[in-house]
């Protein structure tokens, strides 16, 4: 089963996202802060990460760098899901190696699921 780490500190958003992923046939693994996200990525060996930026303990950008620094997670595709849409943050996200970023409030669950499917398919092809 395709495992997806959902790094999101807002429990409500995490819940609704996990629900949707389950319904779409994925195996979501929630992480509620940055440190937990890094740990879950090592532990659960996911196929993809959905990552929030504003999180306690370790913010999303730092999580991206941590993942990059570790060989076992360096090639993990990460989609950033955030509500911070300023150019500065976006350029940081891209620089830190996220494959894509989505503005939470602009997206429907279907959009996110579609994006997950696309990224996974692309990754499979690349692999």
């Amino acid at each position: 089963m395709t495992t997806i780490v959902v790094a999101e500190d807002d429990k409500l958003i995490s819940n609704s996202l996990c629900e949707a992923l389950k319904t779409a046939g994925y195996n979501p693994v929630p992480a509620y802060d940055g440190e937990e996200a890094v740990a879950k990525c090592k532990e659960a060996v996911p196929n993809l990460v959905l990552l929030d930026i504003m999180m306690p303990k370790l913010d999303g950008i730092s999580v991206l760098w941590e993942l990059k620094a570790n060989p076992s997670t360096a090639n993990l595709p990460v989609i950033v899901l955030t509500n911070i849409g300023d150019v500065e943050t976006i350029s940081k996200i891209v620089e830190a190696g996220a494959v894509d970023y989505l503005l939470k409030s602009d997206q429907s669950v279907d959009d996110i699921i579609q994006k997950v499917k696309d990224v996974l398919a692309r990754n499979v092809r690349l692999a």
Partner: protein
Amino acid sequence: MILNILLIIDFVMLAVVLIGYIFTSMRERKFLRQEANQSLELQQKVYQAQVLKEINDRIGYSLDTAKIIDIITSSLGSLLDYDTVSYMLLHDDGSVLFKCHVERTVNHEFIRQVKDKMLQSFAAILDSDVRPQKLDESITGNILNDSLNVSVASFFNLPVVISGRLVGMINVASAAKGRYGEEQASILYTITNQAATAVSKLQTVLENEKGKLSAVIYSLTDGVIMVDTANRLMVYNPAVKTMLGVSGERALSMFDIVDGLAGKVDIRTKMEQAAAEDKPILINEVYLKDKALELTVSPVKISTGERLGVSVLFHDVTTEKTLEKTRQEFTAMMVHELRAPLTAVRWSSESLLKNMAAAAAGVDTAKVKDTAVTIETASNNMLELVNDLLDVAKIEAGKFELNMQMYDLVEVVKDQVKAFTPQAEAKHLALNVAAPDKFMVKFDRVRISQVMGNLISNAIKYTDSGEITVNVAADADKKAETVGVKDSGIGVSHEDLGQLFSKFKQLQSGDRSRKGTGLGLVVSKGIIEAHNGKIWAESAGENLGTTFYFSLPIA
């Protein structure tokens, strides 16, 4: 004999009557003569007064000495008899203006003599020779005829002194001898003196006004400079020196200004542009040192339209800019805070609908319930946020109404502690109460519950381990009841303590991970103050825990 005596008596009586008559008529004649003299004098005075009034009217509020003397000399014809009337004005730059009106034809020599006599008089008064570097001469009136054999036979000079300073001289000259006595001189003296006094007064008024204006400019917090048409710095105030970083007694120069603004604004070009276009130019956001300035470059003109130069106003908009930035940050934060629950609602309802569509396969009721709970919680969060915003608006508008009754404060506190116990337990925090059994105070139950809820939920949010203790006690003077909510959380730095209860402040701290608008504390402050109570926070510092207190007055 008797007849003789009678005749003598008769004669004497006649003589007495006659003498009496002569005496009376002499007295009458003398009286009549006096009266005639007086009426002539009166007539003359009235006439002088009229001329003076006319002169005054024509001078108006002018301070132009040449114009004033021109008016005086051109009015003299009706009062004095002369061949020429002239005036000389000494200018600051050493030049001399000579103007002569020829009433009756004279020759060039006559004019030269008049000039000489005036210069001599100047020299006598000033006790030094007046050798004009430049003499502007203007002769008006009748033509000059050098074939005439005339010279100045009688004349008088009248110095014009304004505000204690000799500014000019008026000369009246005639080819006839003995034309001018004291009387004629005194007429001209009266007129000139009164005009000079009026001008002196006007100058004093203007000096005073100028003094006031200077004081205003000096004390302005905005910087002001003014340059003349040759780009020379005429006016500046201390504020502009401070803004440009020019310290001490050193005078400000145009170089300081151009140099200080270099790389930000080409002030010279802007000044030229303002003068050329004859309208003010606004320059936004000029950053000088740590200040944000707004510059207004305006052409300066007097009422007649004559251009005096250009002024530049340096208005400090740092506070406005900071406020604007905080407001923007606050709005961004509010949008973020509202978007989070909205996103949760949207995604959850989408999932729900999907489940329903696939209902043929049987609805997973547990899943539907979970989703519905998410939607409910998100909606509640959002409602709470919107309510907080509305409360803040009410507090700011001063439209906060309370329903004051006698209640047991301890009961209200315990109710809230009970309500938050599950949340505290979820974070493994102990939530304790130390309070007497009962304490009756007058307050709005709903609002004080709201404050308690805000303080306890904050304590839970900002504490990762340890305990939270709620304490209720009467003050030592029994005048107020104080509630304290003490946590062992992240604490507050000394500088931030005072700002905790102000709007727009929450996310200023570096830790953005603990979400929250900070509006809860703003609302709590509004509620407590509406109760005439006090709310404050104490903390030993960062990571040393915080205690929030509020006190309600007893009775």
